[in-house]
């Protein structure tokens, strides 16, 4: 059991401005969680499977994966597929965090097993609220899968 460990969010996002703004909102909203950041899908899979540079990271899996759609190398959809077909990872809650509200993107992500889908609002106040609500639900209200 790792009850004494702090919760973790894995943010998979290639755009550094988006990383900074998202992390700032999470920090400011007082979410009791650390945020680990990786910049594309390959890094995300390596992180989750504790491979390569992530071999030494703490053992506990993140409580939530926030996954961008459009990224270089392994994109969001491919990363989602990798996570959901791996027995060790498939129970992890994955929420898509993207600019696209296109029906085809939504449909594809849910079909592939995404646990949530959030369109990043352009307006800063709405963006802040969206990230806060998201964190409050997945780190507070929602009961995570047992180890």
């Amino acid at each position: 059991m790792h009850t004494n460990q702090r919760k973790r969010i894995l943010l998979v996002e290639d755009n550094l401005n988006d990383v900074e703004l998202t992390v700032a909102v999470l920090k400011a909203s007082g979410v009791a969680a650390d945020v680990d950041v990786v910049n594309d899908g390959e890094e995300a899979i390596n992180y989750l499977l504790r491979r390569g540079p992530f071999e030494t990271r703490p053992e506990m899996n993140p409580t939530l994966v926030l996954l961008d759609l459009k990224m270089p190398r392994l994109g969001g959809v491919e990363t989602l597929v990798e996570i959901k077909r791996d027995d060790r990872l498939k129970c992890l809650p994955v929420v898509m965090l993207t600019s696209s509200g296109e029906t085809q993107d939504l449909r594809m992500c849910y079909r592939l097993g995404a646990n949530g889908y959030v369109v990043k609002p352009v307006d800063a106040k709405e963006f802040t609220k969206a990230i806060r609500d998201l964190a409050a639900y997945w780190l507070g209200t929602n009961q995570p899968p047992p180890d």
Partner: protein
Amino acid sequence: MITPVDILLVDDRPENLAVLESILEGPEHRLTKAHSAQQALMSLITTDFALMVLDIQMPDTGGIELAQIIKSRRRTRDIPIIFLTAHYAEDEQVLSGYSAGAVDYLTKPVHPGVLKSKVAVFVELFRKTKALNEANRSLNRRNEELTAANLELEAFSYTVSHDLRAPLRHVSGYVEILRAHVADGLDEEARRCLDLIQKSAGKLGDLIDHFLAFARLGRADLKITAVDMNDQVRQVVADLQSETKDRRIDWRIATLPHVQADPDMIRQVWVNLLSNAVKYTRPRDPARIEIGCDVSKPKEYVFFVHDNGVGFNMRYADKLFGVFQRLHPEKDYEGTGIGLANVRRIVNRHGGRTMAEGALNGGATVSFTLKKVLGSNN
């Protein structure tokens, strides 16, 4: 100058071939002579003939047999054949076995005028078929190009819209961080500037959203069902409550026909037209908004929304339905200018037209047509 067409003459007797040649000679024909079925088949491999003139009686492989070979091959199947026969009565049964049009016959001795005119008919047919095939091919090519261009445009608008949104979100985000960071040090002018940056980012966000929605309208499939326009108008008017509740508006709504249309899309047409009417009658008390339909035309309904609002100068009427076109300053009337462009796109996709009439400070009438029977022309 006409390009000559190829004609194949087949007869085992050189003197017969010479006769045919003398009749058909001319700049519009390129004649190929064959003395046997074998020779004829060789020529058919290399040349695209408009027709062949074939002696029915030849030694070895006879004319009928040669014709059967030609008609059984895909490449030569459609070449018309004029048979030359000495004894029509004997050959009649065989000749009638061929499909009409592709095969004809002449009895010997050949009458030059008759042969010429029969040949002319087939040559003309050949030219027309060739032109038609060419037109078809180029049409298919154009079609493929258009489909490719459409797909590219779709991918382009998708990418642009989403890639534009990210930097916009950053502008908005960093303005808020800056505001929080230097809160106390900001004077009124600095605060005003930050507000304007924020507002402009929001406005660009709206434009991108509206552009995306407009692009989507062009490619969404129409789901045609029976639509009661009375229900639609009633619902839309009810939905405008929040904007109309503190105003005096005299709604005059006539009984409207049912139509065959995509209900969600047609609802958008009413939303745009009626919210425009509500918006541009704001200075009027009471405002008057009239909704009706002219059913007197044989093939189409003409729906209209008439108001006594601020109207517009007819000089700019053609701008009205353009994408992001506005005829009133934004400080007076909000909006991005996409509403009537959406209306036009939806109505066009249903095979109808949109029209607008108005006068500055004299109200406006916006109309659209829908076919009474879907699928009929006009």
